[in-house]
């Protein structure tokens, strides 16, 4: 493919073709193809960190979300503090605090991968807790009253009556959070986790093909987020049929 600026006729018509910016720019598909095998290794780590981070984040979210709506004021306050602290600080600061800050206080070292998983878990946990709270509180109080009025205990009512309805309402906002957390793993670049973004950076450091490599990285992120959306849509449909 001839680079722009090599044709005299074009230059006459479009003087800007000679601007310094495009000198030497020569898009190469081959760079994209060649970078993919290495990027896939990074992508594998992105997926692993996302899965483990979200699994723990989901458990944290369930725990703190239920604490947030519990009758115990101390538990409510504790959950509120956690949620507000995480939501009120940038995830970049959280990542650095967990990787550089905490080990200093605890006088130990944390492998970057573990720090990454912990950061994603703690961060998503706060947002998922709010998803839980919102879903539970959106269920009509009449449902609880109906459950209690036939003699179910509070726990039975939550388990058999409220939870199945709340879970269905949680799927769309949960899916949203899953996608956000997946993309947030790219921030782990600052602590040197070899995930997708970091891998892309490393490839560029050796071949200087920023355009092709970042484009490929972006496409790989899209492949992951779109697949996740698809799975969640299917789950949502399946839940709807069962009603």
């Amino acid at each position: 493919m001839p680079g722009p600026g090599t044709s005299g006729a074009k230059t006459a018509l479009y003087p800007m073709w000679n601007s310094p910016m495009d000198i030497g720019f020569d898009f190469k598909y081959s760079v994209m193809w060649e970078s993919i095998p290495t990027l896939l290794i990074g992508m594998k780590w992105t997926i692993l960190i996302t899965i483990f981070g979200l699994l723990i984040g989901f458990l944290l979210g369930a725990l703190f979300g239920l604490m947030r709506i519990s009758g115990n004021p101390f538990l409510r306050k504790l959950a509120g503090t956690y949620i507000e602290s995480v939501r009120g600080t940038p995830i970049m600061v959280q990542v650095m605090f967990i990787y550089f800050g905490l080990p200093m206080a605890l006088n130990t070292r944390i492998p970057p991968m573990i720090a990454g998983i912990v950061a994603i878990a703690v961060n998503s946990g706060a947002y998922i807790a709010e998803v839980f709270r919102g879903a539970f509180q959106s269920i009509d109080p009449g449902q609880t009253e109906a459950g209690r009025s036939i003699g179910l205990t509070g726990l039975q009512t939550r388990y058999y009556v409220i939870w199945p309805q709340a879970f269905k309402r949680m799927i769309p906002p949960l899916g949203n959070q899953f996608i956000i957390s997946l993309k947030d793993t790219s921030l782990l670049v600052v602590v040197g986790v070899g995930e997708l973004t970091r891998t892309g950076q490393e490839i560029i450091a050796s071949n200087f093909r920023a355009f092709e490599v970042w484009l490929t990285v972006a496409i790989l992120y899209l492949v992951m987020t779109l697949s996740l959306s698809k799975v969640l849509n299917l789950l949502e449909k399946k839940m709807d049929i069962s009603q």
Partner: protein
Amino acid sequence: MIKILDLYKNFGDVEVLQGVGLEIAQKEVTVIMGPSGSGKSTLLRCINCLEEISDGTVVIDGHDVRDPKTDINFIRTEVGMVFQQFNLFPHMTALGNVTLGPLKVRKVSRADADKLGRELLEKVGLADKADAYPEHLSGGQKQRVAIARSLAMRPKAMLFDEPTSALDPELVGEVLEVMKQLGREGMTMVVVTHEMGFAREVADRVVFMDDGQIVEDSPPEEMFESPAHERTRSFLKSIL
């Protein structure tokens, strides 16, 4: 069966019930009427322990609800409740709604629960709707499922909180028919409703409430033909 003595209930500064006394005998059908905000629903909810009592006594079948030794869940299985908004469980079929209590509270087997559930659905005229989800039922059908769900616990008394108020006019009749049948079978019932026809036909007594107090308590003929109090008269005039 149900004994209420000097019952007070306030929500913050608002006194909703101000010294209500009412005794309901077994097999008695009592209709409670009164303007909105007079405390009718709150009274029912206090009987079923859905609201905590501020002061006074409620005794159900010999069990004082404020006695710490009384098991509230047990009381609730003794007294069924039917709500204005039905409150069916939307994620369960009609049969699922009816059998949940027997399965989880009474711990009967699935087969026995299903048998009981189908019997009760037939009793309320919905044998063919056992597998339908609430969203596919009309308001009247939903309320009849809700009645069957309460009956599944074999309660000794049933409370109805404006059971036909959320229904389209043409659907009121089918629900009242089921309730009349229950009354004729000897179920102890307390019904908050403004359906005078129902009151005339099945009620043993009509209680008129206003401002958190019982103003008048008399048999339906007396209540409707010659109310003793001015407030009762003006209320009855307004709902006719």
